[in-house]
């Protein structure tokens, strides 16, 4: 079962060419070359990869672990979140 962390790491390794060993949960995004603007783009790519829709509001996430927790919290919410503006088209439960 693929976790959100693993999926996020796969994006960061494939598209950002980062080394897997640099992607600890505590790793600051800034140290990976991803600033607040870069985070917006990363989350855009996460939406594509995980086939989810994130809330439009900007979020302030500082570490890889922050991103994982943010995504997992949204994924854990019931699909009713769509109606309440959470925007989840479908949960990003691993399919593979």
């Amino acid at each position, binding site marked *: 079962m693929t976790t959100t962390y693993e999926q996020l790491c796969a994006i960061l390794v494939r*598209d*950002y060419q980062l080394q897997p060993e640099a992607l600890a949960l505590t790793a600051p995004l800034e140290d*990976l*070359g991803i600033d607040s*603007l*870069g985070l917006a*783009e990363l989350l*855009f790519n996460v*939406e594509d990869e995980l086939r989810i829709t994130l809330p439009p509001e900007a979020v302030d996430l500082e570490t890889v672990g922050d991103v994982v927790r943010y995504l997992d919290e949204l994924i854990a919410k019931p699909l009713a979140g769509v109606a309440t503006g959470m925007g989840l088209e479908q949960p990003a439960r691993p399919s593979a």
Partner: protein
Amino acid sequence: MRRVAVTGMGVVSPLGNGASQAFAQARAGHSGVHCLQASFTDRLTAPLAATASFNGADHFEPPKLRMLDRVSQFALVAASQAVADARADFPQADRGRVGVFLGTGMGASQTSDDGYKTLYGDRSDRIKPFTVLMGMHNAPAAWIGIEHDLRGPALTYSTACSSSAVAIGEAWLRVAHGALDVAIAGGAEAPLTFGSLKAWEALHTLAAVDPVDPSCSCKPFSANRSGMVLGEGAAMLVLESWDHAVARGAPIHGEILGCGLATDVGHITRPSVEGQVAAMVAALQSASIEASAIDAINAHGTGTPANDAVETAAIKAVLGQRAYQVPISATKSMHGHLLGATAALECVLSLLAMQEGVALPTMHLQAPDPLCDLDCVANAAREGLTVHTMLSNSFAFGGTNAVLVLGSASRAPSSGWS
């Protein structure tokens, strides 16, 4: 007015990366034009282009690369080359007195193309978050300022094919008048996208493929010329006051002596002798020199039927009988037309030509045109010349004509300069 030295030069071009390499290729008459290999080639009428051998991943880490359109990548690499060439690590400089002046005609063509494809082609409502930041015309100049911590003005000029001549001219003015100590000036262009190529194709200004050798398709001043070939790349120069350069022991490649601007008002694309003459005369006046002082000219020389005949007439009007004695180089025959970056590239090539005592060739001049009867240095470089003062012509759609006056490093200053 202060003298303005060129102390650094950087190039990304179809003739190679680095000013020296590009110059060597031009001196040898090598062409960077070829048939474009792209997914959309079969949808082009004449799939010619002059591409730069360039991979952004060789220069930028992925997180940054994802924010840079190809035009910004070119600009950043050329600017870094120029700064390194100038040994321009200015630890004591007031960085508020260092500016960036960049010309680009088409800007971030790939970003525009990608966005339109997503919205209209793929019918997606999701467009990349960096689209605005990558696509804005001032992105290349802004990135150069960020990269080198330059806090003076970062200005972008978009006057089509004369963009980087205008940028260099504006930088020259700021440094000459003392508003700035140093300027990074030049141009960048990355127009070889499907949308951009189709738009130019529709204008019927592009060259047909030479049936024998596609690399010979751009034929400025030749009777069988059929148009221009689009190219990509960037050229950036470090300009600084002569005294500033001497004081820090900087290498001096040459001098910007002046810049003249004049606008055609008759038609949006059709060049006019009057407008080109006015720009050349204004350039000479700005440099406080007579036409008789001009040793050579880098022509706009696009290879379009309209431009080359008009430019020939304009040069004759300005130089009189001397027009026939002055070597005239159309280097676009080799590097293609880099639109907003082309004047800066031609400025670099001209400065190096003066340094080396060479008139660069106009290649593929196979059939002299009676309307283009000047000495166009046909098909081979001319060596062993003494060239101290050159004009570099750039004439644009929209009618913005810009002419730079360039001096060799060894040229004695005219009396008008301090």
